[in-house]
C-alpha cells in the first residue's frame, strides 16, 4: 500500500488487534469504536478500548490457500480462516503462519478447526522496496506448539533495590532452524524480520517481568538489520507494546534505535540502569532490545564466510529498581576505531575484513573490558558463577573464557551460537538470558559483549532471590526454545529465501 495514512491506520489496528467493547451490552468489535451499533447513541463515550494482543483465540474455520493474491506470493501456500476470541464475541480473518507446507496432503483442515491459536506479530505482505513495511497480528500459530500462549499479568512491585538491574527479560527466536556442521541456527519464517523479533521479544519480557507497559519510559532497540535505513524499530515496538502512558494514538515514551554492530543493545544496558536511577527522570523502567535477522552474503561471495554462523532472534531486557532479578553491580566499556566488519549504506550484506578479525578486534576488546571490570571489583574467575561472551563463532567465546581462567561449567552454559547461530545484536542478550534461566540467587555473572568497529561492554550482575520466583512467568525460556519438539529444519535454499523475507 503506497498510502502512508492508510498503512498507519491498518497497522495501528492490526498490529495490536485493537478492539472495543460496549460497557452496556458487552458487544465487542475488532476496531476502535466510539459507540456500539447495538446500543446506539446512548453508548457514545461508553466504549471500552480492549485488544486481543495477549489473548488466545480459536480457529473456527479454515481452508487452504495455494494460489495466494500477488502480495502473498512469497508465502506460496498457507492455511487461512477465521479466528474467534472471547467465546465468539469477536471474529477476525486469520492466516496461520510458521507453516512450511511442502505437501498439501499433510494439511488436515478439519483437525485444525477448533484448535487454540495465538496471534503473532508479523509482516503483512510484500511491498516495493521503497515502501513502508506493512505489519499485522492477524497471523496466528497453534497455542500448544512452538510458541505457547502466555498470559500478561501486571503485578504490583514488592521490593525496591538499592541498585538497578534486570526486572524481566524475554527471548524470541523463530520455529525454523538450519542444521549444518554441528551447528543449529535459527531461521526466520518468510514473514519475520528484525522488527517482528524485537516486538516479540519485548512482549515476552513484559510478560516475564509483570511490569505495566505504561511504566516503561524508554526503549532502545539495537539492530544491524533494520529493514529501514531511516525509521526506528523502536517506534514500532513502543506503539505495538503500548510502552509509556497512552494518549490517543501517541505513546509517552522515548524510543530510539542504536547501532554498534553486535553490541548495539548491550551498550544501552548501562544507559537504562542510569536512567532508572536518576531521581528526576521520572522513569521507573527502561527496555533494551537486541534483535537481528543476521545478515550474511551467500556462500562463495565476498563476506560469505559469515553465512555459516548467522542466526535470527532477539532478546529484550527490562531494567528498573523494583523486583530486580539481577542487579547490575558495575560495567566497563572500551572502544577503538578498528574496521573488522562493516556494511556500507545501501549494501545488502556486511563485509568481513579477515585481517582484523580475532586478536586485533574481538579478543583485544573483550579482554580489555572484562579484565578491567574484574580488576575494579577485585574478582578472580572462580569468584564468578558464569561468564557470557559474544559469539561470532563457537571458538572465540571458548578461547577468551579459557584465557580469563574460566572453566567449562562457567562459560559453556552461556554458549548459544550452536543452538541459534550468531544473532548479532541479540547474541549476548540471548546468551545472558540463558544464564538467568538457570542461575541461582546471589551468583555473579560476568558479561563481555563485542561490537565490530570496535568495542566491548563488560557487565557484572548479581542475581537476587526473586530470580527464581519469576521463572513461573516464563514458559518460553531459552532451553524451551532450543529443545522445542516443534522446531522445523530447513535446507540451505529455504534458509536463504526465508532470510530474504517477503
Amino acid at each position, binding site marked *: 500500500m503506497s498510502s502512508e495514512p492508510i498503512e498507519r491506520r*491498518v497497522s495501528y489496528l*492490526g498490529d495490536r488487534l485493537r478492539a472495543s467493547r460496549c460497557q452496556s451490552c458487552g458487544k465487542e*468489535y*475488532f476496531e476502535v469504536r466510539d459507540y456500539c451499533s447495538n446500543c446506539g447513541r446512548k453508548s457514545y463515550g461508553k466504549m471500552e478500548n480492549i485488544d486481543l494482543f495477549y489473548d488466545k483465540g480459536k480457529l*473456527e*474455520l*479454515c*481452508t*487452504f*490457500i*495455494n*494460489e*495466494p*493474491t*500477488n*502480495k*502473498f506470493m512469497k*508465502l506460496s501456500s*498457507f492455511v*487461512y*480462516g*477465521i479466528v474467534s476470541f472471547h467465546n465468539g464475541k*469477536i*471474529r*477476525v*480473518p*486469520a*492466516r496461520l503462519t510458521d507453516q512450511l507446507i511442502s505437501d*498439501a*496432503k499433510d*494439511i488436515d*483442515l478439519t483437525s485444525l*478447526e477448533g484448535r487454540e491459536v495465538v496471534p503473532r506479530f508479523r509482516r*503483512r*505482505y510484500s511491498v516495493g522496496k521503497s515502501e513502508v513495511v506493512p505489519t*499485522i497480528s*492477524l*497471523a496466528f500459530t497453534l497455542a500448544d506448539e512452538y510458541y505457547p500462549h502466555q498470559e500478561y499479568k501486571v503485578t504490583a512491585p514488592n521490593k525496591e533495590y538499592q541498585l538497578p538491574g534486570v526486572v524481566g527479560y524475554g527471548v524470541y527466536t523463530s520455529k525454523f532452524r538450519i542444521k549444518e556442521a554441528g551447528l543449529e541456527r535459527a531461521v526466520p519464517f518468510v514473514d519475520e524480520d528484525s522488527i517482528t523479533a524485537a516486538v516479540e521479544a519485548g512482549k515476552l519480557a513484559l510478560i516475564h517481568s509483570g511490569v505495566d507497559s505504561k511504566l516503561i519510559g524508554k526503549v532502545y532497540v539495537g539492530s544491524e538489520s533494520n529493514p529501514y535505513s531511516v525509521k526506528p524499530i523502536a517506534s514500532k515496538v513502543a506503539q505495538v507494546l503500548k510502552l509509556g502512558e497512552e494518549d490517543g494514538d501517541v505513546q509517552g515514551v522515548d524510543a530510539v534505535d542504536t547501532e554498534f554492530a553486535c553490541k548495539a543493545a548491550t551498550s544501552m544496558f548501562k544507559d537504562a540502569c542510569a536512567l532508572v536511577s536518576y531521581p528526576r527522570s521520572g522513569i521507573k523502567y527502561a527496555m533494551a532490545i537486541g534483535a537481528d535477522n543476521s545478515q550474511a552474503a551467500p556462500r562463495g561471495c565476498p563476506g560469505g564466510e559469515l553465512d555459516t554462523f548467522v542466526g535470527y532472534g532477539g532478546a529484550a531486557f527490562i531494567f528498573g529498581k523494583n523486583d530486580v532479578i539481577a542487579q547490575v553491580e558495575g560495567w566497563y566499556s572500551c572502544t577503538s576505531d578498528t574496521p573488522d566488519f562493516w556494511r556500507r549504506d545501501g549494501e545488502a550484506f556486511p563485509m568481513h575484513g579477515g585481517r582484523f578479525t580475532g586478536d586485533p578486534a574481538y579478543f583485544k576488546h573483550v579482554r580489555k573490558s572484562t579484565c578491567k571490570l574484574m580488576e575494579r571489583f577485585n574478582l578472580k574467575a572462580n569468584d564468578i558463577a558464569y561468564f557470557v561472551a559474544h559469539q561470532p563463532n563457537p571458538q572465540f567465546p571458548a578461547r577468551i573464557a579459557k584465557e580469563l581462567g574460566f572453566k567449562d561449567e562457567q562459560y559453556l552454559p552461556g554458549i548459544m551460537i550452536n543452538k541459534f547461530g550468531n544473532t548479532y545484536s541479540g547474541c549476548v542478550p540471548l546468551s545472558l538470558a540463558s544464564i538467568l534461566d538457570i542461575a541461582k540467587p546471589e551468583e555473579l555473572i560476568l558479561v563481555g559483549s563485542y561490537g565490530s568497529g570496535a568495542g566491548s561492554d563488560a557487565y557484572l550482575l548479581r542475581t537476587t532471590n526473586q530470580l527464581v520466583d519469576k521463572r513461573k512467568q516464563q514458559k518460553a525460556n531459552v532451553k524451551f526454545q532450543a529443545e522445542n519438539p516443534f522446531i522445523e529444519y530447513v535446507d540451505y535454499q529455504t534458509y536463504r529465501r526465508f532470510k530474504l523475507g517477503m
Partner: protein
Amino acid sequence: MLNRPAIVAVGRTKFGEHYGKEPEKLIEEAWLAASNECNLERKDLEACYMSDCFLPITNKLGLEEGFLSELTELHVPMEVTRSFSAALLTACHAIQAGVYNTVLVGGIEKMTDRWDKIRDDLMLLEDPWSYFAGGTPESNHELLLRAYIKKYHITGENLEKLNVALAYVSVKNHANATKNKNAQYQRPITVEQVLHARKTAHKPLGMFDFAPISDGASALILTSEATAKKRCDKPVSVLACSSATDYLNYSAREDLSRFVAAEIAMKNALQTAKIALSDMQVIEISDQSTMMELASLEDLGFIEPGTAWKGIYESYQNNRNFYEINGKQIFVNTDGGLKADGNPFGATGGAQIFEVYRQLRGEAGTRQVKFVDGSPKKGCVSEFEGFGTKAYVTILGEKKS
C-alpha cells in the same frame, strides 16, 4: 405499483476475453443490440444508468458517464453504479417516480485488462481485513462451505453427497451454457472433473467451482408500462427490485453459513411484487462459486436451510437440469450462470436479466424452459456486490391482472 417499469429490449455481448476491444466498444455493442430490438432512437432516451465495478481500476476510467455521452451523443443525465441490479433499481425508482419514461440501463466490465492484478483488487475491495490477513477471492467461499458443513453437522456419506451436489451445480451450469452462444465456456464438464480439480488442489473447492474473470457488457431499455406497449408487443414488467446490505468484513458477521442480505432482499421483493416465492419458475442466481448457488437457494427461501444439497443431489442422480422443490420444478441459471456464462461484474446482472427476459418471452431458443402451460411466467434474479455485502433481488414477469 404506480408507473410500473417494464423492460422492452435487452442486449449483450459474448462474455469472455475481449483483449482487442476498448470497454466503450463492448457497451456500444450491447446497447445497440437492445435499441435495435425495440427500434429505439437515441433521442428517446431520457437518462442512462450504467454499472461497472472496476473500470476506474482496470482501465483507469474515472468518469464513465463521459464516454457514454460521447458514444450516444446525448447530454441526458447519466449515473454510474457498481452492479447492474443497482443500476436497474435506480432506474426503476426514477420511472416509478414519474421522472422519466424511457431510460437505458447498461453494465460493463473489462477485468482481463488487469488479469495479473485483478484478484488482489477484487479481494481488497470485497473485504479489506480478509485481504490483509491473506484471503483470496476464493477463500471466503470455502469458509462459507466449511461453516455450512459445521452448522448442519454434515458428515460421512452426506458430506460426500454434498460435495457431489456442489460439483453438479457446475456441471449443470456448463451444460446449460453449451446452448448459450454468448457464454464464456460453451463446453460440458463432468462431476469427475470438478472433483478432480479439488483433489489436486487439496482444497474444499477447486477451479471448476468458481466463476471466471471476464470482459463483457449488457444493456436493456426500461420504460414505464404505459410507454412499453408502444415499444414492444410483450414487455416484461419489473414486478419488484430490492436490495439489502451486510457488513464488509465477512468474519464479523453473525452467521457465517449464509447471506442474510439475500434473505431480506427476497422477502422485501416478494412483498412489493405481491406474489409467492413458489410462483418463480426461472431463477438466475449469483453462482460466483458453486457454494453460492447452493447457499442462495436456501437464503432466497426456495429450500429449507441445511437441505439444498439434498435437492441438488437428487437432480444429479436423475440427471435433471432443474431442481425439484416440493413437487415443483425450478430452473436455475439456464444461461450457464456466472460459472459458465461468465462474470464481468458490472455486466453480470444484465446478462441474468437478459436470460430471464428471454425465457419469459419464450425466446431462449434451445435452452427455452417449457411448462405444461407454455413459457415460464415469472422469474427472478439475485445478484451480489462483494461477498454477500449487498444483495439485490429483481422479480420479472407479466403484470398481475
